[in-house]
């Protein structure tokens, strides 16, 4: 009869495994628990962190819905303050758009990455021939983080 061998983990190994698992889970979930609304002025982010995030192809905005690792295409608010001293914000009938693109070479990023174009609000107002800008939405298209295109839609009159 063949003797059965059973691997036994000592209490120290089990404790180490549990601590390691808890630490891994804490690290991956920490991003969900830390407010990162830096542009809203609520949670300042160090320039180093912001720079690293920007050169990795990630986008920084006050409101970022959950993105997709393979494919992302969504629109979200950029401007979210509508009180306007009690008068409210009019939903404009005209729209102007500006955009910027990002391309990185896999395996060599962030060193071989390129970003170009004019995504300024001025350019968006010019493209829509707007005299008055009421609010702004933005749109993101990203494929595997290799190519990312960000558009800003300015609405007004």
């Amino acid at each position, binding site marked *: 009869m063949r003797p059965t061998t059973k691997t036994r983990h000592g209490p120290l190994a089990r404790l180490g*495994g549990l601590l390691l*698992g808890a630490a*891994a*889970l804490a690290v991956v979930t920490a991003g969900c628990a830390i*407010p990162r609304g830096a542009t809203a002025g609520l949670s300042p982010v160090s320039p180093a962190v912001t720079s690293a995030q920007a050169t990795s192809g990630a986008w920084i905005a006050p409101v970022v819905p*959950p993105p997709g690792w393979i494919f992302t295409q969504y*629109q979200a608010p950029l401007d979210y303050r509508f*009180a306007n001293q009690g008068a409210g914000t009019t939903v404009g009938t005209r729209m102007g758009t500006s955009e910027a693109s990002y391309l990185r070479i896999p395996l060599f990023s962030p060193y071989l990455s390129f970003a170009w174009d004019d995504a300024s609000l001025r350019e968006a107002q010019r493209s829509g021939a707007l005299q008055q800008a009421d609010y702004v*939405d933005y749109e993101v298209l990203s494929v595997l983080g290799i190519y990312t295109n960000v558009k800003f839609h300015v609405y007004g009159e």
Partner: protein
Amino acid sequence: MYRKIVAMAGALAITVGLSGCLVAPVMPPMGAVFTDYKAPLDWDQQASQVGAREGRSETMSILGLVALGDGSIREAARDGGITTIHGADYEYFNVLGIYQRYTTIVYGD
């Protein structure tokens, strides 16, 4: 048994790690397993009126791999038939990072 627990914890960590997280101006604490809350999007209330109408727009992310939708202010205003916006909230729903939904809610007249 021990290996199964480690494998399940690993799968959970990978799922949550792959799924990107929400960023918003105001974020209440989130649950890693389940989250469903509403919070202010427009937190700067200066004599703002309480709008009679409400409009919604939403985006969703599945497994943190694919994200689609239109959660813009424009779409929410169109949904509610709103011509003047007075305020905005947002809603976030998440189950283990497998299904995440972000909803923009605007109020106005």
